[in-house]
């Protein structure tokens, strides 16, 4: 094994095979693993042991920030910086401040959802070693892949390779660094 590799990638035909393989890989004690599929597979989360993301909390925080921004902005404008009576309403006329507050809540929460998701996923990331495997182009079409990285403490090239082959994989590829 002269060339430096990033990990081993096994190819599967069906989502069921992928989930079963992922489960076995986890049971075998591998931790630096990942699965790739052309669509989300809910069973994958349990099979790979993926922890629930913190994203919902970020979105909630984003929403609260939006609400407070909306309130603070309107309070500053209509109470502090430029108090002027309009329609006989008080300076702090909360009911008419609700629509902008509501819209900013939604806006900030949506930003948190989208950019939080991209940030936590480490995207944009134009290069990743798995793209070096030519067959990996099919991961966005019809094929399912399971990756074990070389940095995994349990990783041993020959043993891991034969283990992955035993999981009903179509083929196992070396992923170049």
């Amino acid at each position: 094994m002269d060339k430096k590799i990033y990990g081993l990638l096994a190819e599967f035909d069906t989502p069921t095979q992928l989930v079963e393989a992922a489960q076995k890989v986890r049971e075998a004690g591998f931790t630096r693993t990942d699965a790739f599929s052309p669509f989300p597979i809910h069973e994958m989360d349990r099979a790979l042991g993926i922890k629930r993301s913190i994203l919902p909390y970020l979105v909630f925080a984003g929403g609260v920030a939006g609400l407070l921004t909306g309130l603070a902005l309107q309070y500053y404008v209509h109470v502090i910086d430029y108090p002027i009576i309009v329609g006989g309403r008080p300076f702090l006329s909360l009911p008419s401040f609700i629509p902008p507050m509501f819209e900013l809540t939604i806006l900030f929460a949506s930003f948190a959802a989208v950019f939080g998701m991209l940030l936590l996923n480490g995207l944009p990331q134009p290069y990743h070693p798995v793209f070096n495997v030519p067959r990996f182009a099919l991961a966005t079409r019809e094929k399912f892949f399971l990756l074990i990285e070389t940095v995994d403490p349990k990783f041993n090239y020959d043993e891991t390779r034969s283990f992955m082959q035993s999981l009903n994989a179509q083929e196992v590829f070396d992923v170049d660094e």
Partner: protein
Amino acid sequence: MQEVKDSKVVQRELFPPMIKGDHSFATVTDKISDKTLKRKTPLGWFVGFGIGFILLQVFMLTITYLVFAGIGIFGTNQPVGWAFPIINFVWWIGIGHAGTLISAILLLLNQKWRTSINRFAEAMTLFAVACAGMYPLFHTGRPWLAFWMFPYPNTMGMWPQFRSPLIWDVFAVSTYATVSLLFWYIGLIPDLATLRDRAKNKFFRIIYGLLSWGWRGSARHWHRYEIAYLLLAGLSTPLVLSVHSIVSFDFSVSQVPGWHATIFPPYFVAGAVFAGFAMVLILCIPLRVWYNMKDLITDRHLVLMGKVMLATGLIVCYGYAMEAFFGWYSANEFEMFMIKNRIWTGPYWWSYWLLILCNGISIQFLWFKRFRESAFWLFIISLVVSVGMWLERFVIIVTSLNRDFLPSSWGMYSPTIWDWSMFLGTIGLFVTLIFLFVRFLPVISIFEVRTLLPQANVHGHSEDFEENILESEGATERA
């Protein structure tokens, strides 16, 4: 083995497939992405794009003259100080609402049939909002100062008036445009990755590669992706209801008889969804023929959209009835006069009855299977409904304003050629954008269609089939 087969039969009966034909992951991928990647563009595309592009030039011409001469070129004048620009603004914004309804509300309700139509319905939303935005932008007369509507510290020492529904509108519409764009783009990322991996042309591979942000379908990414997508759907749902409610506040917060009504927000939202579904049908009926996609956008999709149109149309009719009822029930002289004037004594009575014909009578045909199941009739009814919803805004705005409280300030409104050319022009903008979208991006969400195939189910994780279904449904809720 026998048991597995039986459960498949049961599954087919319980959940009839939304995708017709013998498709696999590869064939649905190829079928949808080839429309974009295949070099040969159908002749129909050039015809449609050509028409859109010519009308777009009408738009360019109009706004050039408008900026040069000022908004006096429009027929808008006292007492009808709010005419075509706001009619068309509300019409376009309303059309956009069906896109968000399909992509967000139907997702939350777990309506699988949304999958084949959500992508272009969302695109339709974006383009409709863009067209809508043109009206307030150019009706300001000085579009280069439109940023004055946003609150920012400036040397004039001025702030927007946050107690005004018009400023609420600025916030609602700009938030709506932004969130719709995010929702649409997030949905596109996995499909852009598919296009990147399938493109033969190096230039397009780089473009799609950049746009897909290096998406590789990792299980961890999908996990967060689905959470983000579901949360966006949850956020878009109150958003879409708020947008048209706030648009209706532009009218109902004022004192004008015919506008000052509490029924307005729900009635406007239902009307928006009604008009939007009509537009989705207008777009998808020819699209599925030209692009040979009857297996993905099936007859069942059309029937379901027809039913939504009927339901929302009936809510709108209830709105018309309530408007008339409250005109009488209010026992207010001006309200009663407004209703009479609108329906039979006023100069615009014909527009009211055309509206009832287009929005009230035409949809009654949808009660019958024969019309609901015919793509031709659905298309015709959708066109009629689009005209009807335009008339609704005309009736609300023009008939309410042309008879003011004092007979001395009564007046008539008629649009000028520039009013019409601006309207035609935004239709051109819309058509141009739709055709560009159809040519360069996947019109159907490929990754979501893959999940609809029976092969996408993970078998054997529960002995019992029903438990398996429940389990996967539970997972959808959690994700």
